[in-house]
């Protein structure tokens, strides 16, 4: 608080504090109604941001919760060695539920045969998230285990293992040195992996029974997991406390890492939620900027008068700054509360269609929304206010003295700074911030140049037009300095709405394509070459839709550039799974559909191997990155004493989301055909075809059938939730967009009112004025619409390429639709907003000036 020292004249009353003046001014201005527009803009801004932040926060938490079920917990620590005991204790001390488990491969033996199985030894509490469905038979849907786990001496098995071992419930099987009784059939396991290469049939035993089996010895290949669940804060705290203690062999898994398909859907959804929030911020920024400019314009006279009374413009604008700050605080509180209320209503309306109930929002959205309000005020309202410092007291005498306009650099620079800061705050992602800011700058600059260029181009043609379009065009041209920000504002609002809806459509499309209802829900692995025909026939006879049979050669990567692979890879990759086990190799003449070559080139379809040339290899890009492989590297794979030598010919990305067979290594045809191989197929099994699966298991006992239906179902549910989130966000954005367009029109009302009044004194009829104004709005709408299409295409292009990893294509419907919608909304809103022009007596309007 500053007090002006008053040493000269002690008899004069001391000047009141600026804050006191500001508060009084705020109350007075509020009463007069002149603050309404700015206050509404701020409340709207904070409310919009609050709604998106609250909804995004809750949906985000809901999605993570849903996804956590796929992992069996919120957080998993995985290690090839037993984890330190105190980690479990620490977790329990930090209010977390914890359940250790151990997974290993072991041969199970029964009276009727042997089968290699993936044994999972579980402890009390499993699964921490999701449901384990167990039952007595394959034909009846099982029930939730409800915390029950195999008792000591019991083993639970899945259908494949049951068939392979030729046992029924109650029979005994051997694991290592211990005998177990089969007591339950596993029907669904929440944390069954999504990949398909390590799928042995499943057996579950009690963790306490492991020592008795004697199969786990020092050096055995096992995976220890500590499953953790609890409140988000506790999880996060535990995560940060454990991170420094992790060794290179330990892996901290959350949903994203554990389930790439779900992870990428979540990532995209999160990016989308961010995008809509940022969209809301841009919309709000536009609203605040327009309202603040109007507010400042209307303050010019007051400042001139106060300056005339002996207060420096700096002092007066200082008071107005404080007024705005107080206003910002009050409106932030109102806006955030309204946002909280509205999102509660919206979520409760949609709750019934959500697969899980949404957790309540945290405190962060409050902070985010209210902080955003203040930053918007700073970024978008500061410049017009600054301009008021230039008001000359002379204006009391000469009203035509207008303050010099704030430099574009300070106006746009400050706004840009606020925007970049906000985008970064929201996304915590420099890439998104960079691309979005870049997109916006390009759009603003291109739009400004186009608008001004077009108006200048059309200006000489005016005189050839009939009177109404001539006057409309002239008004636009001569108002170009004010029309430009207006067009930019309209275009930005439309752009945001268009972008949010374009991205929504493409995201949903890509998800629908990714997981159509009839997406393969089963994999058949280990089909022997001699079974190929019979297996295909069996599927066809059962009318099961299936993929072609892909050959698989399983080989281990042993040498990289003539040195052992372990020595060649970066240190952190030494314990990489890809080096511990055999990789799946296949051959193809053409690039698989969902794959993209990112380095090198695919081989020609008619590729012929020359006798001495090394085999070209196509490597999955992420694997290559982890192992430090690049084009031209020489690799050797080994299988059963045979070698496959080749050079890295290209790197390719693979879409792991599609639940289709994907391969790490591909060669051209003919190279591997002589190697020992099995076949792989995927197929869709309708629920009513389930009995045929048991038949298939019996007919081909050596074929591993893997049911991923449950995983698919869970992923679909997550996508459904994400879709809903996106729809809700789109709706809010649309709503806010329309409200903003109305506000923007309202903003130009003062000038239009006066112009209309003057036109009337000059003999124009009401109808004529409306027609001229209508034409002006049509031009504004058309221009904004075209710029919005252009801008949304540019921004969408950048975002798709850089962030969403989606294919970008021009949408012609948008080119047609957006300008039309723009013209319709802006003209309607404009004519509605300016209807007062004809209502108020012209002299009253003119004299009020």
């Amino acid at each position, binding site marked *: 608080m500053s007090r002006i020292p008053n040493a000269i004249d002690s008899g004069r009353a001391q000047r009141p504090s600026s804050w006191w003046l500001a508060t009084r001014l705020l109350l007075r201005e509020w009463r007069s109604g002149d603050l309404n527009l700015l206050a509404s803009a701020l409340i709207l801004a904070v409310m919009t941001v609050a709604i998106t932040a609250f909804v995004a926060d809750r949906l985000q938490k809901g999605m993570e919760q849903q996804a956590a079920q796929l992992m069996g917990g919120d957080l998993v620590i995985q290690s090839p060695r037993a984890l330190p005991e105190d980690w479990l204790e620490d977790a329990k001390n930090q209010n977390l539920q914890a359940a250790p488990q151990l997974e290993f491969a072991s041969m199970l033996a029964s009276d009727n045969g042997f089968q290699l199985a993936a044994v999972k030894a579980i402890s009390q509490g499993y699964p921490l998230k999701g449901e384990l469905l167990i039952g007595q038979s394959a034909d009846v849907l099982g029930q939730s285990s409800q915390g029950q786990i195999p008792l000591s001496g019991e083993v639970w098995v899945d259908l494949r293992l049951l068939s392979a071992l030729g046992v029924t419930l109650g029979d005994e099987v051997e694991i290592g040195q211990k005998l177990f009784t089969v007591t339950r059939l596993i029907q669904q396991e929440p944390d069954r992996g999504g990949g398909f290469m390590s799928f042995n049939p499943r057996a579950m035993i009690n963790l306490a029974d492991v020592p008795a089996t004697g199969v786990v010895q020092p050096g055995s290949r096992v995976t220890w997991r500590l499953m953790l669940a609890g409140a988000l804060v506790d999880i996060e705290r535990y995560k940060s406390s454990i991170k420094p203690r992790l060794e290179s062999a330990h892996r901290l898994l959350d949903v994203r890492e554990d389930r790439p398909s779900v992870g990428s859907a979540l990532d995209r959804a999160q990016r989308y939620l961010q995008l809509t929030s940022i969209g809301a911020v841009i919309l709000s920024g536009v609203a605040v900027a327009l309202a603040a400019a109007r507010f400042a314009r209307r303050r010019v006279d007051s400042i001139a008068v106060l300056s005339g009374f002996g207060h420096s413009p700096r002092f007066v604008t200082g008071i107005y700054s404080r007024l705005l700050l107080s206003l910002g605080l009050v409106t932030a509180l109102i806006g955030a509360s309204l946002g909280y209320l509205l999102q509660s209503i919206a979520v409760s309306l949609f709750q019934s269609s959500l697969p899980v109930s949404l957790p309540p929002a945290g405190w962060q959205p409050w902070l985010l929304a209210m902080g955003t309000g203040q930053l918007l005020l700073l970024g978008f309202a500061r410049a017009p206010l600054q301009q008021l410092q230039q008001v000359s007291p002379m204006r009391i005498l000469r009203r*035509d003295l207008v303050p010099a306009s704030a430099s574009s650099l300070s106006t746009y620079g400050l706004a840009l700074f606020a925007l970049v800061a906000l985008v970064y705050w929201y996304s915590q992602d420099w890439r998104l911030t960079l691309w979005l800011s870049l997109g916006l700058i390009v759009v603003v600059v291109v739009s400004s140049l186009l608008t001004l260029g077009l108006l200048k181009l059309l200006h000489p043609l005016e005189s050839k037009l009939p009177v109404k379009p001539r*006057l409309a065009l*002239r008004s636009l041209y001569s108002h170009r300095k004010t029309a430009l920000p207006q067009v930019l504002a309209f275009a930005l609002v439309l752009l945001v709405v268009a972008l949010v809806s374009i991205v929504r459509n493409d995201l949903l499309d890509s998800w629908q394509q990714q997981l159509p209802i009839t997406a393969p829900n089963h994999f058949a692995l280990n089909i022997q070459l001699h079974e190929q025909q019979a297996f295909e026939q069996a599927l066809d006879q059962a009318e099961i839709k299936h993929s072609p049979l892909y050959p698989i050669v399983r080989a281990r990567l042993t040498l990289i550039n003539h040195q052992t692979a372990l020595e060649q890879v970066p240190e952190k990759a030494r314990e990489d799974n890809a080096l511990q086990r055999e990789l799946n190799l296949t051959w193809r003449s053409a690039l698989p559909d969902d794959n993209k070559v990112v380095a090198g080139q695919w081989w020609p379809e008619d590729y012929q191997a020359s006798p001495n040339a090394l085999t070209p290899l196509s490597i999955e890009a992420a694997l290559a990155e982890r192992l430090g492989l690049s084009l031209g590297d020489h690799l050797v794979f080994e299988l059963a004493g045979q070698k496959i030598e080749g050079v890295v010919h290209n790197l390719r990305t693979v879409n792991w989301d599609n639940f289709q067979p994907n391969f790490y290594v591909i060669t051209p045809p003919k190279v591997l055909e002589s190697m020992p191989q099995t076949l792989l197929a995927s197929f869709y099994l309708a629920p009513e075809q389930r009995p045929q699966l048991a038949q298939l298991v019996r007919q081909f006992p050596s074929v591993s059938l893997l049911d991923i239906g449950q995983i698919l179902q869970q992923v679909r549910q997550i996508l459904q939730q994400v879709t809903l989130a996106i729809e809700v966000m789109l709706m809010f954005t649309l709503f806010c967009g329309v409200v903003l367009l109305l506000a923007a029109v309202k903003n130009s009302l003062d000038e239009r009112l006066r112009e209309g009044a003057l036109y009337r004194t*000059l*003999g124009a009829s009401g109808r004529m004025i409306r027609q001229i104004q209508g034409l002006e709005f049509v031009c504004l709408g058309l221009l904004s619409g075209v710029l919005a299409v252009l801008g949304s295409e540019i921004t969408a292009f950048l975002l798709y390429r850089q962030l969403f990893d989606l294919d970008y294509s021009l949408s012609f419907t948008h080119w047609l639709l957006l300008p039309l919608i723009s013209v319709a909304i802006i003209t309607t809103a404009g004519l509605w907003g300016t209807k007062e022009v004809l209502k108020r007596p*012209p002299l*009253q309007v003119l004299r009020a000036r």
Partner: protein
Amino acid sequence: MNTPEPLASTVVIKTVNLGRTLMDTEQQPLTILQGINLQINAGDSVAILGSSGAGKSTLLGLLAGLDQASTGEIYLNQQPLTQLNEEQRAQVRQKVGFVFQSFQLLGHLTALDNVMLPLELAGAKDYRKKAQNWLERVGLGHRIKHYPNQLSGGEQQRVAIARAFAGEPVVLFADEPTGNLDQKTGQTIIDLLFKLNRDQGTTLVLVTHDLELAQRCQQRYLLQDQQLILQTPAAVNPVNAEATP
């Protein structure tokens, strides 16, 4: 609706029992004008005097068809304004010119554009030439491309006068035309206004509180206590204007 009484062709403005009441901020009726009866013939120059807030501008707005009366009748150029809708009143206004105290030029238009505007609105053909011609007549032929903020107050008022006369009005309403100008400039502007008025044979209705300016008009009325009082050139006692037919 009353059938309008035919007026003598020389009568340009006539009011019968004209009144205007507004609602004040507390929604209480506030009478500004009451029982005004006035008749102005073609070519007359009439001054309406009165103190600030007496309702001069309100009366002007009513006479020009810009505002609606609460009671009574107004005839402008033979047309019963109170019985016309906005579209029809706009048509009548095309034969009316305005000069305001605050000039009321459109700041974003050049002097030429400002003068062209009423001509274009009326659908005149050679609007550009006519506007240029008028700007030359007011002595601004060399400044037609200038914007209002590049012109002095006197020059702005000249543009406003050119704009007012360009539409070849039957009546010209002037609302304190020199109120914003220094005495010398004001004098020049008034000379110009009266000269053009004479040349064009226009009826002039002038609202002012400047007695000297009012002296130059053929008739002077004083607006006081919501009433209009005719002041004869030598009058000591004001005579109620109702005395005129």
